[in-house]
């Protein structure tokens, strides 16, 4: 099996666990942000900046971004193995996805800690 070298967990079971762990973190973040928008009468610049000012929110946001990136890597890897039977196309696609995931992660760190 050549293609498994491009999967995140290197095994179906690892991918399975990572996919669910990342899902739960993202679910918590979506609920938390939803709660913020629902309970803030007017989302002003000050309120928005205040939300992201705490270390808690920065770490929570980063954990969520890390989850997004892992989740997308695993998800798109599975999708590509289903719809891209040609190995060369699939490998290039997976490589592009991995590079984008890593770029999003670094960019996200820079954004979160610039505040």
């Amino acid at each position: 099996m050549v293609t498994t070298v491009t999967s995140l967990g290197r095994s179906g079971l690892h991918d399975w666990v990572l996919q669910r762990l990342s899902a739960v973190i993202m679910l918590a973040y979506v609920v938390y942000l939803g709660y913020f928008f629902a309970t803030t009468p007017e989302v002003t610049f000050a309120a928005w900046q205040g939300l992201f000012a705490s270390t808690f929110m920065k770490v929570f946001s980063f954990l969520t971004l890390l989850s997004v990136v892992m989740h997308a890597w695993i998800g798109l890897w599975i999708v590509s193995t289903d719809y891209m039977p040609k190995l060369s196309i699939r490998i290039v696609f997976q490589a592009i996805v991995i590079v984008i995931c890593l770029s999003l992660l670094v960019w996200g760190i820079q954004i979160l800690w610039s505040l």
Partner: protein
Amino acid sequence: MIKKRPKNLDLTTVRQPIPAISSILHRITGVVLFIAMPILLWMLQKSFDSAGYAELHAMFTESFLWQFILWAILTSVVYHVFAGVRHLLMDMGIGETLKGGRVSAWSVIILSAISAVLLGVWVW
């Protein structure tokens, strides 16, 4: 492995049961959200200075295109979350029967449709 296995790739000739539709929507919204990630990070970056925040505010109050993009992203998030929770419940052994699978697939689609309307009201 036998190389010449029969394939039926013409999906229009196959009746798609509701869990199949729910599943493909889960995949489509997943791909949409991956494409949305650079847009979301760009918005987050912009939102952290007051001029950028005002610009975003103007975008989402004036531009129909941006309002639509925001609505599409939020709706995709909600659908993907509902469909994901359905998976997690099934992992816990809840709704694993054929009937349970159909009922939960319908629930995901109906709840998402209602949410899509509510999000539309919120965005516009």
